[in-house]
């Protein structure tokens, strides 16, 4: 069966309050569509002929379709298609994260070989929740993006195309990723909620969700990260600047912050880029490794849980909260490895063999 | 102290004096400072024809250049007025009202009535009107009747520097929205103007010349044409009374009617198009309220029902001339003037 690539492009990522409080990037819809066109061109160049896309009302698909139409109409393609055929998952659009969940699940069922994801950490988290073993190729559009690597999307498209057409061995093409599972059992009714984070879980004492994004540190108490990269932005930078942990090593890091957030004696004070353009001084009480498979019960007894930078859950003294890091939780396309392999083996020197569409 | 200055200087002086007197007066418009954000001189233009030149040096940021965005800044002037400032917004050419008329007639003009008398909108919108500047159809119109049609607006059109200064000061102090129409061909005209501040009350026509034979009513540039016509007629023994309306809303009906009751003859001169303009308005009012005094049919001298042409030869035909006014007066004096007649 010819490989089909799924695309989840979130039109509403990168619209939150951090644009006001921290001059965060705002990637326009037209630019998101242009990114997809570049990815599509790269996929086509590798022989991918069919793409399945999440429907949305934010305008991305409309722009992409216009781009495809113009390419067909212009002389640039000399009558040849330069893009794969674009198909859309048949499903209603709600404009919420539920769309991402459902589209991912549908694409997995349809047997896509990889999922190109355009969005921030939040979008990637939603995809990761439903993608099973389908590898993710992430492209950053969001604000606080620690998970997707920053890279020209054409390269991500090329790597994905090479990976799914089988020209790079899977052990090179795909990488394993960690996640933290968050379990919240309600003390009131015993109901349980399970959520997950790809990069970080932050516990704050304020118990309301509000504008979701997390950008204040005064109520910040505990931080759990899957990896601690000093090169990324966001709350996980705090961990990265204390003790780097790679994406590909087992386990993560947990950090406790001083209750009043200030710098008292005996407390390490750290200056960290907690959001784009926002440096904050935080007091760190202690930090330690977070081994995989071990459930952590936080010290904070009431507050909110921010997953990958956004407040999602709130909990009280009556509720039971626990956090467990999982190694090898889902797969991603290892763009760097694929491209190195492509170069070393001169994969792009010949004409790729077209593969007939199954659609 | 009184000295001869031009209407342009008089307007500049009125803005200067009012800005000095009242810190809530601000002045905004396209290029009224000129060169904002550019590398050259501050106050590069002082208005497209230099009316506001020099004010920036005296009042700094209270003079504000605007983007070329009439809807936004005229609306902002209206909003600021409703919030306690006294903005004077220059619309450059009043023809441009086409792109911001909503802010003038649906917002500024209606606030007071629509909000039950609880709002005041002391905004002045000043701009150039009138033909004779070789500026063609979109920069030359006398659109005063469009404004006088709207209840809630006051409409002013001075004919000389003295009136321009006093009426602009009154416009700024007035608590209603005022459309201040400046005839661009009068900018250079000089007359005696006191250096002090003074306000000319609205609704008071100026009788420029006494006469018992015929009443000529006009405003703006054509007031001067009417005076020329009256001087020519006087040589033939016809004494025309010339009334300069000065303000079109409110309008001084009493002065017009009292004069017509004495002269029995009326010629109304309006640079606007002939349909539904000040001339028809005044003719109708006099017809309704002083019919018994009329010894002859009312004559109207207006621009033709055409856009303003560009070619100087045509534009000169467009604006009512002293000759056409004198001819109209003669028609009221001829026996046939008493009955309407369609010209052959």
């Amino acid at each position, binding site marked *: 069966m010819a490989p089909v690539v799924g695309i989840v492009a979130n039109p509403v990522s990168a619209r939150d309050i951090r644009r006001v409080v921290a001059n965060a990037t705002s990637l326009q819809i037209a630019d998101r569509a242009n990114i997809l066109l570049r990815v599509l061109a790269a996929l086509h160049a590798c022989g991918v002929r069919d793409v399945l896309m999440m429907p949305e009302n934010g305008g991305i698909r409309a722009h992409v379709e216009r781009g495809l139409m113009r390419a067909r109409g212009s002389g640039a393609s000399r009558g040849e298609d330069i893009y794969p055929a674009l198909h859309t998952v048949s499903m209603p659009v709600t404009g919420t994260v539920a769309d991402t969940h459902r589209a991912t699940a549908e694409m997995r069922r349809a047997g896509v070989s990889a999922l190109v994801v355009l969005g921030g950490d939040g979008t990637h988290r939603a995809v990761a929740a439903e993608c099973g073993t389908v590898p993710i190729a992430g492209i950053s559009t969001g604000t606080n993006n620690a998970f997707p690597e920053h890279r020209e999307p054409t390269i991500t498209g090329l790597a994905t195309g090479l990976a799914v057409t089988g020209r790079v061995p899977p052990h090179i093409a795909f990488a394993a990723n960690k996640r933290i599972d968050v379990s919240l059992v309600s003390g009131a009714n015993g109901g349980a909620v399970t959520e997950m984070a790809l990069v970080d879980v932050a516990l704050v004492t304020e118990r309301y969700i509000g504008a979701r994004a997390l950008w204040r540190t005064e109520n910040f108490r505990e931080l759990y990260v899957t990896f601690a990269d000093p090169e990324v932005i966001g709350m996980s930078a705090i961990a990265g600047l204390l003790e780097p942990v790679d994406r590909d090593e087992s386990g993560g890091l947990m950090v406790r912050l001083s209750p009043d957030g200030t710098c008292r004696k005996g407390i390490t004070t750290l200056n960290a880029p907690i959001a784009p353009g926002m440096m904050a001084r935080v007091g760190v009480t202690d930090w330690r490794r977070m081994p995989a498979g071990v459930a952590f019960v936080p010290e904070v007894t009431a507050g909110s849980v921010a997953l990958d930078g956004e407040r999602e859950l709130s909990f009280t003294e009556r509720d039971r909260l626990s956090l467990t890091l999982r190694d090898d939780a889902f797969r991603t396309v290892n763009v760097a490895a694929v491209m190195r392999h492509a170069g070393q083996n001169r994969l792009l020197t010949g004409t790729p063999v077209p593969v007939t569409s199954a659609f | *102290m*009184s000295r001869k200055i031009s209407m342009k200087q008089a307007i500049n002086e009125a803005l200067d004096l009012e800005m000095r*007197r009242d810190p809530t007066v601000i002045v905004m418009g396209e290029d009224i400072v000129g060169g904002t954000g550019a590398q050259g001189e501050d106050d590069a233009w002082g208005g497209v024809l230099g009316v506001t030149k020099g004010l920036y040096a005296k009042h700094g940021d209270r003079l504000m250049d605007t983007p070329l965005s009439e809807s936004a800044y005229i609306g902002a002037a209206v909003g600021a007025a409703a919030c306690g400032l006294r903005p004077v917004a220059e619309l450059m050419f009043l023809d441009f009202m086409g792109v911001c008329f909503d802010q003038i007639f649906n917002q500024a003009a209606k606030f007071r009535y629509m909000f039950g008398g609880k709002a005041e909108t002391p905004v002045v919108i000043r701009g150039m009107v009138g033909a004779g500047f070789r500026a063609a159809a979109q920069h030359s119109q006398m659109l005063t009747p469009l404004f006088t049609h709207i209840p809630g607006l006051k409409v002013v059109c001075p004919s000389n520097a*003295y009136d321009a200064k*006093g009426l602009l000061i009154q416009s700024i102090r007035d608590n209603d929205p005022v459309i201040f129409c400046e005839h661009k061909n009068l900018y250079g005209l000089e007359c005696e103007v*006191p250096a*002090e*501040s*003074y*306000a*000319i*009350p609205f609704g*008071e026509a*100026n*009788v420029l010349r*006494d006469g018992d034979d015929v009443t000529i009513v006009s405003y703006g540039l054509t007031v001067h044409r009417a005076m020329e016509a009256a001087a020519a007629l006087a040589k033939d023994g016809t004494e025309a009374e010339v009334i300069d309306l000065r303000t079109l809303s409110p309008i001084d009906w*009493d*002065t017009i009617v*009292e004069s017509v009751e004495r002269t029995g003859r009326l010629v109304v001169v309006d640079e606007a198009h002939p349909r539904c303009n000040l001339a028809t308005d005044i003719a109708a009012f006099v017809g309704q309220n002083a019919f018994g005094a009329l010894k002859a049919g009312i004559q109207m001298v207006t621009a033709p029902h055409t856009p303003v042409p560009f070619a100087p030869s045509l534009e000169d035909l467009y604006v009512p001339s002293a000759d056409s006014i004198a001819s109209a007066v003669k028609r009221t004096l001829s026996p046939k003037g008493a009955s309407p007649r369609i010209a052959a």
Partner: protein
Amino acid sequence: MLNERIKPIVMPKWGLSMSEGKVTGWLKRPGSTISIGDELLEVETDKITNVVEAGETGVLRRVLGEPGTVYPVKALIAVLAEPDVPDDDIDAFINSYAVPASEDDGEAEAGPQYHTAETPAGTIRYAKRGESGPTVLLVHGFGGDLDNWLFTIDALAEKATVYALDLPGHGQSNKQIADPSLSGLSKAVLGFLDTVGVERAHFVGHSMGGAVSMRTALDAPGRVASLSLIASAGLGEQIDHGYIQGFVGATSRRDLKPVLETLFADRGLVSRQMIDDLLKYKRLDGVDEALRALSASLFAEGRQASVLASGIADARTPTLVVWGEEDRVIPADHAQALANTAQVAVIPGAGHMVQMEAAGKVNALLKDHIAKAD
């Protein structure tokens, strides 16, 4: 060619802004014998119509000014001469007469026609005429200005140094009146005299200006050489309240014209220009407040607040009282309040603005009084 026995009658210059005048009609026929003060002709300017009176004696040998025609100031309009002067000489005189260059040109070089003085009461505008003789100060009335002395100032300046000022709140002086009472105005006048370096002057006051002059004579007798009170306030309680209210309240020509007409016996003297000038004055910032403050202080409820007649009667200041018999603002019988101590002249056919309506007579009285008192 100059024959001193030939006396030209020229278009007069009334006030500083007059440049031409229209002969409206002759009151004496050619050949009439003329005495000083005889009314020769009527001249109309854009400000006012008035009679030209003879300043010399002789026979009206030639009448040159055509009725209905406008002549520049100083244009020759008639010739007076004794009967024995030959016609040829008169014709030669007429042929060689040249209108002198307009005074404006000369004055433009010599300096402004009006001056301003920075006084304790603010900026005061004034005019100064004449270089020698006694010092005279002309003080106008309520709502007036120094141009009320249009026909007076040059006549007096022939034999005196004459100052005419705009009181605070008036004309082109400072419009704020710190103290809108007679003594407040009197202090302002004295402050003005201090500024221009005048210790003592003959005060000529019209209407409210008369009351100001009396107040000054009572408070600072050393500075008032004599008083000439023309249709003066301060000699009785009565005053036409309608006039005061009308003057203060008028904002239009239509309102103001009938008010101004009460100032003159001959209503026709109120010209379009006079009304326009007063409207322009009344529109100036601060004027309305000034006039209201003064009228409230001096003429509240239609009565004069200060009657100074008895004080002046007791003082030793030489006093002249002049009234127009047809004064409709302040009744002419107020003149009798000083009948026992002052020279009193009531002039028939003139109203409140008697110094304008009967300028020749009033000027003669003033000259005589000042000469005697000095």
